[in-house]
Structure formats: C-alpha cells, structure tokens
C-alpha cells in the first residue's frame, strides 16, 4: 500500500454540534499528514456526499469516509467496509450514502477502490457550533486509531503514537 493514494473524506454539518465530527477528523488528518510529509494522503470534506464524489473517489486506491453516528450501541467508533449495493435505492439525494457513491464509481468509472467508513459516536445535534466533550473524546480515540491504521497501510512508522495491537 506504500505508494497507493488515500482519500480521507469527512462529511456533516459543523453547525449542528456533533455532526461536525467527520469534518473535524479531516482537519486533524490534514495537519498530521502534512507534518509527516505523507503526500499519498489527501483529505476532502462537505456537508454531505454528492453524486460527483463518485468521480473523485475513482482516483484513489483507498477511501475512508468519516461521519458522525447516532447509533446508541456504538461505544466510541467503528471502521466498516463499504459494500456497494446495486439493490439499494436511496431515499433522498440529500443524503447520498457511501455505498451509493461506491456503486456509482464502479458503474460509471470502472474503478473499485478499497472503501471504508469510520463512524464516530456523537450525542447532540442541535444548531450550535462545537463538539460535545464526549464526542471530542471519541474523536481523539478515533484519530489515534486512524493514524495507526494509515501507518500500517502505508508501511510507515512514527514515534509518539501508541497503537493497540488489534488496530494494526
């Protein structure tokens, strides 16, 4: 994976409290990858995924979407594979899912990047800027996790990051 291109794409509305988790993660990764000269990593963000993101995603080998999660049985975060589903009809184009984007990427651009979604647990969603303390804690943990994963995928090592064994 060392020479492969990686996209970290966070989405959500930072004006709705913990819905800003995805975009915040992209800011953290952007600073980290710049500090360590990891030119293979690019970041992007938006309020939601859009159909033209299928064209963007086609240009990468590994894509990690990052979004806030409302799942109450999710403790901190989870990383899942995105499975394109040709039977899934999206309810509304306002909220295009990663599965929809990935399937469109395959159909229109004949590309199949490895695609995952990092879901980070959020708690409050009202109109207000700023993450809750609990969401911030989850973000910090997820950030360390993602750094470890990226170091493993890109076959690089940096001091100062303590990775749990099951993360590598």
């Amino acid at each position, binding site marked *: 994976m060392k020479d492969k291109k990686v996209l970290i794409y966070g989405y959500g509305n930072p*004006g709705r409290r913990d819905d800003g988790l995805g975009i915040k993660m992209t800011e953290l990764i952007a600073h980290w990858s710049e500090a360590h000269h990891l030119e293979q990593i690019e970041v992007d*963000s*938006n309020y*939601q995924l*859009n159909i033209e993101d299928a064209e963007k995603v086609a240009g990468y080998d590994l894509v990690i979407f990052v979004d806030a999660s409302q799942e109450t049985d999710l403790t901190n975060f989870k990383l899942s594979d995105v499975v394109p589903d040709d039977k899934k009809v999206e309810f*509304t*184009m*306002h909220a295009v899912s990663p599965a929809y984007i990935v399937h*469109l990427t395959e159909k229109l651009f004949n590309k199949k990047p490895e695609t995952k979604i990092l879901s980070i647990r959020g708690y409050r969603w009202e*109109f207000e800027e700023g993450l809750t303390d609990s969401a911030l804690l989850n973000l910090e943990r997820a950030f360390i996790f993602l750094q470890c994963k990226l170091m493993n995928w890109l076959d690089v090592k940096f001091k100062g990051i303590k990775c749990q064994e099951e993360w590598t």
Partner: protein
Amino acid sequence: MPKKITIEPVTRVEGHGKVTIMLDDLGKVTQSRLHIVEFRGFERFVQGRPYWEAPVLVQRLCGICPVSHHLAAAKALDVIVGAGTGKGLTATAEKVRRLMHYGQFFQSHVLHFFHLSSPDFLFGIDAAPELRNIIAVAQENRDLAYQGIMMRKYGQEIIAATAGKKVHGTGAIPGGVNKNLSTEERDVLLKGADPLNADKMVEWSVSALEFFKHYHKNNRDMVDNFASFPSNHMSIVREDGAFDIYHGVLRAVDHEGRKILNDVDYQYYNDYIEEEVRTWSYMKFPYLKEYGKEKGWYRVGPLARLNVCDFIPTPLAQKEFEEFKAYTKGKPNGMSLHYHWARLIEVLHSAEVIRDLLNDDELQGKDLVVKGTRQNEGVGVIEAPRGTLFHHYKVDDNDLISMANLIVSTTNNNEPMNRAVNSTAKAFMNGQPQITEPMMNAVEVAIRAYDPCLSCATHALGQMPLEIKLYNEKEELIDKKIKG
C-alpha cells in the same frame, strides 16, 4: 370504509415529506395534502448573533442550497452596512457574487434533472422502484449519467473558487466580497481540459435540452396534461424585464399574463406578501395580500421565472425561451412538468453567463467592499434554483440580530405543490380498484417537478414525533399512530 393512503417518505426530493390522500367509500379522492414533517428553528437561532455572522450561519440551513442563503443574507446586510441594495457594490464584488450564484444554480438544476427526474423520463412513471434511480440511468444511458456528474462537479468548482470553500464558504460579506477570482482560477474554469471547461458546459446544456424535447415530443399528451392548472407566477426580474436571478424588482403575473405585482422594490415585500399558517403543516402558505388567500397564491421557480420575464439576455437560452413561449402562444405556462423544460433553459442560460463572466477582467479587480451609513434593517431577495428566496433582518444598536424572517423558495411553492398533488391523485387514483406503486410514484413525480427542498422550508423548535391520523369523510378521527 374511507381509506387514507400515505406516501412516506417522498423519494428523490431533498429532505423529508409525507403525502396524505383521503378516499371516500367509492374510492374517489376527497382530499390530499403534502405535509412537511421536518422543521427548523433557524429564525430564532440567529437572533442575538452579530449581524456579520449571518452569511455564514445561514448556510447551515441546508446542505443543498447553502450558497443561495449565503448570498440572500449578504444582500440584506449590504443594506444594513449602507452599501445599498443591488447596484451599490463594486463591479468586481457583484460579478464574483454573480459567478458564485450562477455556479450553484447550474449545479443544483443539473442534480435535479439528471439524477432526480431523469429516471422518470428514461423508464416512465410506471417503472419498478428499483429502476427509479441514477444507477439504473447509468446502466441504460451511461453518457447521461456521466454528463450529470461532471456538470455538477464543474458547478461545485465554481462555488469553491468564489466562496472560498465548499462548507461554510465566506466569499460574500456585508458590502461586497472578500476575494476576487485569480487568473489561475479563471483559466482552470474557462479553459480546463475536457470536459471541465465553459464551452463543454454550454454544449452539454444544449444536449440536455434536446433530450427533454425529444421526450416531450414522444409523450406530449402526458407531459402537457400532468398536474396542469392555471396560477399566478412570481419572480424577480431586471428593471428592463430581463431574466435575472441575482437582483431585480419583484414582479408577479396572473394566469393570463397580466401584471399583478408591478416591478416593486423587494425591500417592501411585507407590504405585498402575507404568510398563512395552516394547522396541518409546519410549512406556511404565502400569498399576495391584495388578492387574498384563495386567489393570491403563486408559483415560483423555473416555470414562474420564464412566465414572468420578458426575455433572456443570452443568445442560446433566448432562442429556447422563444420556443418555450410560443408553445403556449405567449401566455403563461401552467403545466407542472414543463418545470423541467424551463429548468433546462435556465441550465443553458447559466452556462452562457458563466462563460461570459469568466471572460470578464473585472473578476480580477481589487476593489471589493463598499460601506456607507449604517441602517437597522435590510431585506435581501434572490432567485434560488427553486424560486424566490427572502431574507429579512433587523439589527440593534449593539450590532446583534434582533429579528429574522425567511421565506424560502419551497415555502412559496407550498400551495402549488398541494394543488399538483391533488390534481394527480384525482387523475390516477379516482375509482381505481387497486392503488399501485406507479400511481403513488405519479404523485411524487408531481412534487418532484417543483424540486422542493423540504429541509429548509419549515421553522419551529423542539421535538416532534411522526404522527399519522386517519379521518373519515366527516373529519372524525378514527385512527392514530405515533412514531418516535
């Protein structure tokens, strides 16, 4: 036993909606309503915030049309900072804002046509649900799906270049803009490698129109008679009557084309427009005061804009406009599915304007902001893709917002959408022995023609569970279910 059918949720529109249709014992439609179940408390939320935050804050209203709100708020605040309304900005500031606006107009319309409506045109409204989406479009007509995506991308690139970033763009500020368009940015947009350049966007806009006209020619009866009804129409127009989506005077015409709101200054919109609240919907019902609730409602958006304006100031779109007007012999067009035709003429016009603006050196000017005598109140009106958008603010002596009133485009179309639903329900469901999926999709087709954005159309605070109520023909409650 009277039956109530609920179509929930409405697929392929932005946000969430619910349609309720009531049938009597003979299976005839007695009533139908489009309910808005999503709501927001935005007007109260912005109160107490410094006024200069408004153009960024309001973008949180909706992730689909943030630029429209950004610009409408900026226009209202232009008045408050003493830069005047419309013509008070520097040439560079106005043209950067126009480029931003036409860019988002272009990409919004493209999304709607290629990805929300084209499944109906390609496969028909009777098609199976799994065919009514862009994946099936991509399999049936790959070029159509691909063009839609790249046209969307182009529009988004214009927004990023003019607003500064995709999320919470800051390009428009009270009195002007905070950046011009550099020559490097201009060259990428004007002369980029195919297909991402201005000429290709004009070419594809022409072919999108041809696609619709071909469909119309082969399905004329359905397209012309589907949810067709007379109405008033409203939009802003340039002072000389030209089509203009960024700034102008407020005009409305009746179903015969007579002016019923005669090019008024939108700063005084409150003198002419009232909003009715109905018990069964969180979305309000605006109407022209002079004509009352029954006769004063109006359509906005692409169909209305082409009914209201006198001409389109770009050559290719003007030619299409003449063909559009000739179809109804110069009279206003009341056919709901002709929204798609009008929308595609606007796509072409937007592409032409974008190309013209990119060739204008004033976009690289350095004079960006104007200020004058501070005012305490301002109104900004713009034609968003979905229709006329009003932002009205009052500011106190501490520079904090003390009042905010928004009439969003979809709210302006509330009554027409309800009438379209009623017309379609009666046409497709009256006396039929069985209610089918295609019949239900037909009602959704009627709503989709208006391209509603239900996310930003309502205002309220607090939690609201989803409630479904069943009434008999005497409006007696006979069943109720609550979710959430």
